[in-house]
């Protein structure tokens, strides 16, 4: 035991310790915590883990450590808090290279000084670059700018065996080699530890406006979203919120651009949205996940939003919120209803070509229903996992199909 701690201490220049009560991932307590301060130190930590057969989970701000299935085993939490440098911001090239432990907020503040942004919303307050990549969590602005996977240009990855590899690059256009940046995006840390990532940036538009409308039901919500999709005002985001099961739906649209352009487009959007639409402040619920015991992510083809809302209404009382313009909604249900809710939606999901994933749930719910549901291509995914992490040391069991 002390040998392991010594090795971790050597790997991190003394930034390793026996785990405390708070050092838990998905309800599973760790034995040690190590905080590498560089890619080299992270590699040394993972080499140690490989030599000692330690199961590893990475932790940024810890905001989503209970997402996904709890790990089968856990010995070591790799805390990326010391990897907190923005390495390079090439404003003229619209590119930034940041270490994984940089909080999105800090990154945003720094980029804003140059009038730029990484067009990913801080959906969960406190999120780090690494946590955003691990979960692939994208907020409202993905509609126009793309999801996290569309904005990442390259990564530095430490493999389970401690080997450091880079993929992609720091230019916005590059097709040399496999795009591993996308592969690790949303992989919940099961393929490697990302220590640095390169992103493409966007200029911060000079003007922004929100247009909101309240519609009575799912059919009206679908029609309203369709009018936003097919119009000519190019929204940055189209969101909906239905806090009460079966109740009215609030539609909110974000428009960004030049002062003159936003003024004109806002007027067009108000007219097209109808239903008493008006320009107003950012809704309080904008870009936040619905609160509750159990959080379920449901996706749909863009023509399925109405049917999906009806399906949710039939399945169990739930609050629904999310990116209607993309086909990603989040539902919050009470724990006793959760298993039935998830299974009912999974039965119906093929009719809107979507998936149903339980992101967070108390242990008793997780034991009742699989978090991930059916996964197309699972066998190939297992093969990928086996190649990258043959001893299953990286967040084992946290991902789809027990990966």
């Amino acid at each position, binding site marked *: 035991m002390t040998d392991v701690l010594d090795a971790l201490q050597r790997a991190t220049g003394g930034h390793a310790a026996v785990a405390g009560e708070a050092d838990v991932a998905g309800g599973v307590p760790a034995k040690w915590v190590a905080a590498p301060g560089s890619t080299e130190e992270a590699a040394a930590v993972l080499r140690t883990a490989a030599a000692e057969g330690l199961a590893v989970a990475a932790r940024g701000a810890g905001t989503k450590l209970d997402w996904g299935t709890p790990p089968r085993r856990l010995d070591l939490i790799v805390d990326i808090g010391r990897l907190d440098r923005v390495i390079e911001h090439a404003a003229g090239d619209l590119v930034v290279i940041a270490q994984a432990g940089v909080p999105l907020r800090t990154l945003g503040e720094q980029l804003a000084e140059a009038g730029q942004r990484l067009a990913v919303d801080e959906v969960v307050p406190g999120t780090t670059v690494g946590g955003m990549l691990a979960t692939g969590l994208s907020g409202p602005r993905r509609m126009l700018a793309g999801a996290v996977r569309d904005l990442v240009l390259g990564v530095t990855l430490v493999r389970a065996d401690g080997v450091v590899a880079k993929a992609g690059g720091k*230019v916005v256009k590059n097709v040399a080699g*496999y795009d591993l940046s996308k592969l690790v995006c949303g992989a919940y840390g099961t393929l490697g530890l990302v220590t640095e990532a390169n992103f493409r940036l966007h200029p911060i538009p000079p003007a922004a406006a929100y247009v909101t409308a309240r519609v009575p039901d799912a059919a009206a919500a679908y029609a309203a979203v369709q009018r936003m999709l097919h119009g000519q005002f190019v929204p940055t985001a189209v969101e909906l919120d239905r806090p009460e099961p079966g109740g009215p739906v609030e539609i909110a649209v974000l428009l960004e651009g*030049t002062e003159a*352009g936003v003024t*004109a487009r806002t007027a067009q959007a108000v007219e097209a949205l109808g239903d008493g639409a008006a320009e107003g402040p950012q809704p309080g619920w904008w870009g936040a996940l619905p609160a509750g015991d159990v959080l379920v992510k449901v996706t749909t083809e863009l023509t399925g939003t109405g049917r999906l809302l009806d399906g949710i209404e039939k399945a169990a009382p739930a609050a629904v919120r999310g990116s209607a313009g993309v086909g990603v909604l989040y539902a919050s249900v009470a724990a006793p209803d959760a298993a039935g809710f998830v299974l009912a939606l999974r039965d119906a999901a093929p009719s809107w070509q979507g998936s149903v994933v339980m992101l967070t749930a108390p242990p008793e719910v997780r034991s009742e229903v699989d978090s991930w549901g059916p996964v197309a291509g699972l066998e190939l995914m297992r093969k990928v996992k086996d190649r990258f992490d043959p001893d299953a040391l990286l967040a084992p069991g946290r991902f789809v199909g027990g990966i």
Partner: protein
Amino acid sequence: MAGLSELASRLRTELGTEKVIDDRQELRTYECDGLAHYKVVPGLVVLARSTADVAAAVRACNDAGVPFVARGSGTGLSGGALPHADGILIVMSQMREILEIDRDGQRAVVEPGVINLQVTRAAAAGGYYYAPDPSSQQVCSIGGNVAENSGGAHCLKYGFTTNHVLGVEFVDPSGNVIEIGGKAPDSPGYDLLGTIVGSEGTLGIATRVTVKLTRAPESVETLLAGFDDTDAAGQAVSAIIAAGVIPAAVEMMDALAIEAAEEAVHCGYPEGAGAVLVVELDGPASEVDAQFADVKRLCDQAGAFELRVAADDAERALIWRGRKSAFAAVGRISPDYIVQDGVIPRTALPEVLRAIADLSGQSGVRVANVFHAGDGNLHPLVLFDDAVDGAAEAAEKVSGQILDLCLQHGGSITGEHGVGADKAKHMPDMFTADDLDTMQLVRCAFDPNGLSNPGKVFPTPRLCGEVPGRHRGAHPLVEAGLAEQF
């Protein structure tokens, strides 16, 4: 080759005689793609008409241990579809049905042989189009676009193929048919799609593709600006980006490229220009109007001596014709040429262009420059005459030195044409052995026997062998009686 003739008869039985070609003369048709100086006559050609055809061909290859290569329209510029002499070339160009245009859902579902521009034509009536637009979009196929992660002039604002492909039906190298992604976003599990797109046919073959359709913009403004030199044109580009404008396209051509385009298509670019910029803005009319005024002002400030604005689609087409025909046009001023495709951070443009001019001056090899200036994707056209002794080698050398320049400035050896057969040797200049090894872990997961387009992308294939630490059952060599384990 006995193996291939057996394979041919098996495939005739399974697929039908008309889909299998083994006549030497007919096979020659397929000996190269758009990179014509690499030629290999394929061992056998299969003309696939369905997913089942592709799967059957791949399974037959597996059983025989024979490599396979997929080919779309054959317009690729890196030799990605270069056949294997002892393998099968699976030609996808007959799978060209547009299966669905789902306007309300902003999606199209197409077979891989469908031509890029046909998707846009099919979606146009509903006010939509398919955004990725390689210069070869009138002939290149969606399947080829998926393999290469093709770009185009409008990538700066709209992204590449990988940002517009949402799902594939896919035949893996074992012959299994797998659905990955689809009309809805964020399928659970690894983003296999993101890895497959741009994998240059080395991970399997897409047999159906779901793509995103983009709303046709309300307004498009296209400007042609003439400058004295590329430095001034480059300054204009920097100023436009710094002003927070992301044009739909920013294209630059230097004097030699302009000369070639004039010879070929008489595009009437500004007289005496050392460089021209084509800048296109699109979007809501109110936005385009505001930004277009800025762009014109910034071009003026950077020293544009002539600004032309397309008054209508016909004039826009004329402006684009010079740019889109540039590669072929170079044939008018040089018997032979190499199309290079490298990327630099956009801000390094002036410096790199000067270095290219120096290389050209020192070697006596002429270089015409055409590039996507907005994203730093260079397309130097290295001119030579193959009839002159040593000219091809000199051109090849300059072309390689240009890639070195790109890497010295933190760029890439390819922005859109792919690595293919042409640039595998340059991969170690851009990536470490560990980087390449890590990419090949994916290769081994998909294609442990190395039959899917072998010899492309990676200079030295990784031997996949057993997954370390995993021993499922007896070792295959032991089972085959070829080895003993102690």
